[in-house]
């Protein structure tokens, strides 16, 4: 029993240390922002890595997400809800929930893992120490550009994802569900609130911050060679995904 309590205690202390570590890292990122304004090239490079290179994967995911949501909604509507509301259901589901969350999960898998692996490898091969000996602080140089790129690119990817997912739903509705273009589009417009789009983009902004911060933090925590890099990469993806889902709930309960 004493061993169990000691184990729980150690885990709790370690958890608090990590939470504190993440906030200290965020504080250092905020402090470095003025320096970053003079080195915007670093941010642009990361925006390309995180945003442009993730675009094909996000678009493929989105088109099928939209298509599936149209099929699922039509199946649940049958005989109970008029099909003119299909556009409404697809639009609401995509803009509020599926667009931001699925985009974030896809980016967490692709970009979060890549950030943790890259910084983790730099840590175990002494490249981070090399930067420090050149009097270059790794936080402004490596973390801040990734953080800002995450904040900027997730909302942009989400807007694109929303659009493509709705197009996917629209295409399926027209081709396979015998719904006219006019019916789908009028349903889409019927209960459209701009507030929903804003809520989706706020989620995307938060998720972008989570993915880049957790990826960088786990990268910096890496110890012990290739095995350690693998462990950090896995942790970065798992923790980011869990935090995205928790964040989704928190934002939804605050906004709606």
């Amino acid at each position, binding site marked *: 029993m004493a061993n169990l309590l000691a184990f729980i205690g150690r885990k709790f202390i370690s958890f608090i240390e990590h939470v504190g570590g993440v906030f200290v890292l965020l504080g250092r990122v905020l402090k470095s922002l003025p320096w970053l304004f003079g080195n915007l090239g670093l941010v642009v490079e990361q925006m390309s890595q995180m945003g442009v290179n993730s675009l094909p994967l996000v678009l493929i995911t989105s088109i099928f997400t939209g298509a599936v949501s149209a099929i699922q909604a039509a199946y649940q509507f049958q005989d109970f809800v008029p099909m003119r509301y299909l556009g409404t259901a697809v639009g609401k589901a995509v803009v509020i929930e599926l667009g931001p969350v699925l985009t974030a999960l896809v980016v967490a898998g692709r970009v979060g893992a890549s950030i943790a692996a*890259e910084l983790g490898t*730099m840590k175990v*091969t*002494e*490249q981070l*120490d*090399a*930067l*420090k*000996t*050149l*009097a*270059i*602080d790794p936080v402004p*140089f490596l973390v801040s550009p990734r953080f800002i790129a995450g904040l900027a690119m997730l909302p942009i990817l989400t807007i694109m994802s929303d659009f493509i997912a709705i197009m996917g739903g629209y295409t399926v509705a027209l081709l396979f569900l015998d719904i006219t273009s006019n019916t789908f589009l009028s349903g889409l417009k019927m209960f459209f609130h701009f507030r929903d789009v804003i809520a989706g983009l706020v989620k995307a902004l938060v998720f972008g911050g989570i993915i880049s911060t957790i990826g960088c933090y786990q990268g910096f925590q890496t110890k012990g060679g290739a095995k350690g890099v693998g462990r950090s990469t896995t942790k970065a993806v798992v923790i980011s995904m869990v935090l995205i889902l928790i964040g989704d709930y928190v934002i939804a309960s605050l906004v709606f």
Partner: protein
Amino acid sequence: MIKIVDLHKSFGENHVLNGLNLDVQRGETMVIIGRSGCGKSVLVKHMIGLIRPDQGQIIVDGDEITNHREEELFRLRRKFGMLFQSAALLDSMTVGENVGLGLRYHTSLDKEAIQERVKSKLALVGLSGMECLEPAELSGGMKKRVGLARAIAMDPKYVIYDEPTTGLDPIMADVINELIMRLQRELSITSIVVTHDIASATKIADRISMLHEGKIIFDGTAEDVLRSTNPIVEQFIKGSATGPIKPV
């Protein structure tokens, strides 16, 4: 001048440095020898604040750095250049970008001036025209020389060499030795070299200190080391498996 007083450092139960005292004089090449894993790299990382001591003082040019904040340590590090054991080149950058990295972020030099400085430092280490290569395209010896060019790019006062000849063939190891001696002669750099390569140590050192069980147990010239009757030093110099140092 660097002065280290009563330095202690432990990692868990492993007491790596145990009341170590050491002075590095201006302009000299000080070589620290000792077995692998005895704490040589840990010691030099303390000198530039990459590792914080548990106890003791590190004084660089009269400035006690032990309790310096991170910002102050970054200012201090501009006095230093460091060649890492693995060279630690940033693999996302070319050779030229690696060498010019410090210049780009710490000087007001324009792009052309940085390129000129990078060219001259690469020429100094015998790698002219290699600016556009990626680190992955270089041999071990070339990586070390690029690491050295990067370390001296900002004209530092002190250069730390962490195992500069480890993993190199004897000819390339001697090329690195000659480079260290040439840089000290031509640029009046204070060099601190960590190695377990006795041939290299005796060739380049003005002074050799031996680190054993967390303390400096010997300090003298290369001749003093070779003539030493200290059984620990003798065993290490001869590379003998029998003696007071037990193989682990």
